[in-house]
């Protein structure tokens, strides 16, 4: 009989997915922290080494590390996202050791693509000389590995271990760099190599943490690569979205670097201190809001999310499901709105105190408007980050990609216009892009939570069936196509003489 299934399909799989997705968001968001730590380490090195090295050489050093980190973040984005999701999922199902080949493949992939991208940019765009290029590529590939390990470790709630490893690694990086500067009078490239020891230490420390319990014979890298390719295809929308998102965060800087405000470093790379330093200060304001966002997700929100899916699984009526779905929807929007309000307060303070902050940071007074514009932009970027992260919670992968593309395009277009206008408008492009993308992301999220039950059931069924079809490899059943001229088994004569 064709029409009766032999089991009830699992619409409620999201209940189990809750922690997986949460972990992934946590891992992605928490990755912002190391950026700030790294910048702090670079500032520390610059301050301490200022007496023995020229400002140009130090700027060059900082530029190479920033390039390496930025390029690796873009190149590693799909690997970070897919690997942390696969590992989170494997831990949910107690298959952690089996999933570790995927982690290793992800790390290798991230390192290779980061090195390739930094080579293409360093050699192809800026004709960086060989030893510096090598240092850039090494830093980039090590950072690529680090992003993957870091996201996976953070996703697993290993905040303490990750923080300790990171602080130790950066201490090693800072120490090694200063030792190179003071002990050997190192060149810029040698400083980068020394700094890389610390990044390698972070990657090594995190790899020990993540790969413990795995024996070498179990590490079938080829299987890991195959699985990784499979999962990347499955999560193609968010993988590409993550990549576009990483580019979008940097596109305004690149455009300004390439414009009149850009200046060339010794290595041939370019930067724009006028814009970069003010933008960096503005980005610092997002830290408290992101922290609160992650903590709320981890507590109250995940409980409501699980309640909703548990109710469905435990055979709630539609009325009950609608009630709980409505509550989850309200909570989702409130989460963004409340923290947005908090961020708005921080933003207001920074905008008002911008001249003081600029003065205290030893920057130019002309950078005040940039700081103000970027701070308001960061306010809307928070809304954008929060809303797009929550969209992943509801498995809205296409919308995630669309919004990241929107941010990329508007940021690029807006910044290009501001470059034409002049330095007085720098940051305005980012602001417009952030406002448009933030509002769009909130509107999409609002639409999703308004139709939360539709997305859970109908879209959930479509997704499940598509995955099922992918897994079983559809066999064509077109007319006449699968009826060969001869049957496989013995032919039945006029009546029937066999069974």
């Amino acid at each position: 009989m064709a029409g009766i299934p032999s089991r009830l399909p699992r619409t409620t799989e999201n209940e189990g997915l809750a922690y997986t997705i949460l972990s992934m968001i946590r891992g992605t968001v928490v990755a912002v922290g190391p950026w700030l730590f790294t910048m702090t380490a670079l500032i520390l090195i610059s301050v301490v080494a200022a007496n023995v090295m020229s400002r140009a050489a130090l700027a060059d050093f900082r530029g190479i590390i920033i390039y390496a980190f930025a390029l690796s973040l873009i190149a590693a984005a799909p690997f970070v996202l897919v690997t942390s999701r696969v590992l989170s999922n494997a831990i949910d199902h107690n298959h952690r050791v089996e999933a570790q080949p995927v982690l290793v493949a992800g790390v290798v992939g991230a390192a290779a693509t980061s090195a390739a991208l930094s080579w293409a940019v360093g050699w192809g765009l800026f004709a960086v000389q060989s030893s510096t290029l090598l240092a850039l590529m090494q830093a980039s590939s090590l950072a690529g590995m680090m992003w993957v390990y870091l996201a996976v470790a953070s996703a697993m709630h290993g905040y303490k271990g990750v923080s300790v490893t990171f602080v130790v690694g950066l201490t090693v990086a800072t120490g090694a760099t200063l030792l190179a500067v003071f002990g050997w009078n190192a060149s810029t490239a040698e400083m980068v190599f020394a700094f890389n020891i610390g990044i390698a230490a972070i990657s090594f420390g995190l790899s020990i943490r993540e790969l413990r319990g795995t024996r070498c014979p179990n590490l079938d890298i080829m299987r890991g690569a195959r699985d990784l390719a499979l999962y990347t295809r499955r999560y193609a929308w968010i993988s590409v979205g993550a990549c576009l998102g990483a580019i979008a965060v940097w596109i305004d800087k690149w455009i300004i670097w390439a414009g009149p405000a850009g200046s060339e470093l010794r290595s041939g790379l370019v930067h724009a201190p006028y814009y970069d330093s003010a933008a960096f200060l503005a980005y610092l304001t997002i830290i408290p809001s992101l922290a609160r966002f992650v903590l709320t997700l981890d507590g109250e929100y995940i409980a409501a999310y699980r309640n909703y899916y548990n109710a469905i699984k435990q055979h709630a009526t539609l009325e009950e499901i609608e009630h709980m779905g409505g509550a989850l929807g309200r909570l989702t929007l409130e989460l963004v709105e409340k923290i947005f309000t908090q961020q708005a307060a921080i933003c207001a303070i920074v905008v008002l105190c911008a001249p003081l902050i600029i003065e205290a940071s030893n920057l130019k007074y002309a950078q005040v408007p940039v700081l103000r514009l970027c701070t308001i932009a960061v306010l809307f970027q928070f809304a954008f980050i929060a809303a797009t992260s929550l969209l992943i919670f509801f498995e809205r992968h296409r919308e995630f990609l669309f919004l990241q593309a929107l941010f990329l395009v508007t940021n690029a277009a807006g910044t290009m216009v501001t470059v034409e206008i002049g330095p007085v408008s720098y940051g305005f492009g980012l602001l417009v892009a952030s406002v448009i993308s933030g509002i769009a992301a909130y509107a999409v999220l609002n639409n999703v939570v308004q139709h939360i039950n539709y997305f859970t059931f109908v879209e959930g069924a479509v997704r499940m069936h598509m995955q099922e079809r992918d897994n079983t490899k559809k066999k064509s059943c077109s007319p006449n196509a699968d009826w060969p001229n001869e049957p496989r088994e013995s032919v039945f004569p006029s009546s029937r003489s066999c069974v």
Partner: protein
Amino acid sequence: MLVLQDKVDTSIAPQPSTDADVCIIVEGCYPFVSGGVSSWLNWLIRSQPELNFAVVAIVNGPGPREPRYQRPANLSYFDVVNLSDAYILSRRGNVAHTQASTLGQEIAEAGANLISDGDTRGLDNLLRTIHSHGKKCDLEALLNSALAWQTVQRMYRQLVPQASFLQFFWAWRTLFGGLFRLATCPLPRARTYHAISTGYAGLLAARAQRETGASTIITEHGIYTNERRIDILLADWISDTVEKGLSLEDLTQDVRDIWMKTFEAYAKCAYESATFVTTLFAENQVLQRLHGAQEHKLRIIPNGIDVASFADVRSPSPCARPTVALIGRVVPIKDVKTFIRSVALLRRDIENVEALIIGPTDEDELYCQECRDLVEELRVADCITFTGLARITDYLPRIHVLVLTSFSEAQPLVILEAGAAQIPCVATNVGCCKELLEGAPDEIPALGKGGLITDAVAPEQTAAAMLHLLSNHGEREAFGAALKARTERYYNAPQAAANYQALYKEAFAKSARTIKLNVGAC
């Protein structure tokens, strides 16, 4: 009668193909399964060489599927309709939430009326709505869009507002997904449509009748609605979530009720649309009437076999090793385990007895292994042989008694084949086994017994019956002769083929008349 053909949106309407005389609509068997209804269909198509056939095979779930039969020369069109949405839906439907409300209301009302009141106008309304809205109502829109959500919510509120919504959602997707699939799938043009069950096959025949005005025939070997009722009652993946307590008067429906009522409604639609409703034996008609088949449509056409092809089969010598055989697939419904247990009991009285289990063992390998384990456990491995797929004519000359221990049968061909070879049978009292072995009440002259009837799952009775026949050569010969005479008279293939030929002729005439009337009305 409703004729929708002129209203069909060409973009979703079935594409015309080579015209066939008869379009067979079959669910879950031919040509991908061997034995049973599949082999009967293979025979039916071949028995009407002057007619041109089309076959629409309704399946569910992933392939690959390979035909088990050689393609008949008179089969001009073959298509597979897969009911599983995993294998048919590649995209989301394009209906916005704002547009879905009115259309969803329309579809939900028609669907709910169909299920709750068994109102077959619900099917008419559904088909009309689907076909008149074109792409807005294509399969993706019906299952994968806001329209689907509006429809499922409204039907749930109308039918089972207190039941598990999760259960209802998947039931709806399966039951109505199948209906929507059949409402939008290509339909070959034919002079008559012959569905080999009610259910989805009957539903497609009902659609064909409504769209083309052609006559339709429903043939049931087993009663589909009854078989589904058993499946649904036994299904442990359907949870009963509505608390009815001990009250027998509580008419609150649960999702399990919806499953059953939907199949009943589908059967009613099929019967109402059908020109003829045929089955193999009279007892089945009681259930067909109960499910809405009108008396004047009912016919009985027994299966037949080619008796002549068994003419050369010689009866085994009385001195040969006593041999009993079960011929059939090694699957639970055949209750092969009861046969094995009865052989173990028989062996206490006849030490050198040989038992053959003749039939494919690959359909349910787990069950087959359980049977083999039972053989070992009862220490009868030296007298029981699993032959696997085999030519039964190779084995019939060795068999003294044929045994059938099935839980369920319609009109088993093996009894007729044994009869043609003059072999008496022991069979359970299921389907029309009793009628085959003891004759119909109106059999004149009475031809006598062709074997012994036992209860189902009664190894002692089966063993006793086998012992009785193996020990009484004279009675065994008389039973074999009676069964042969009955088979020749009532169950021979040429007669069955002639019956179907006559039925098709009548159906073609009705089709021509109806289509002419419709054209006149237009």
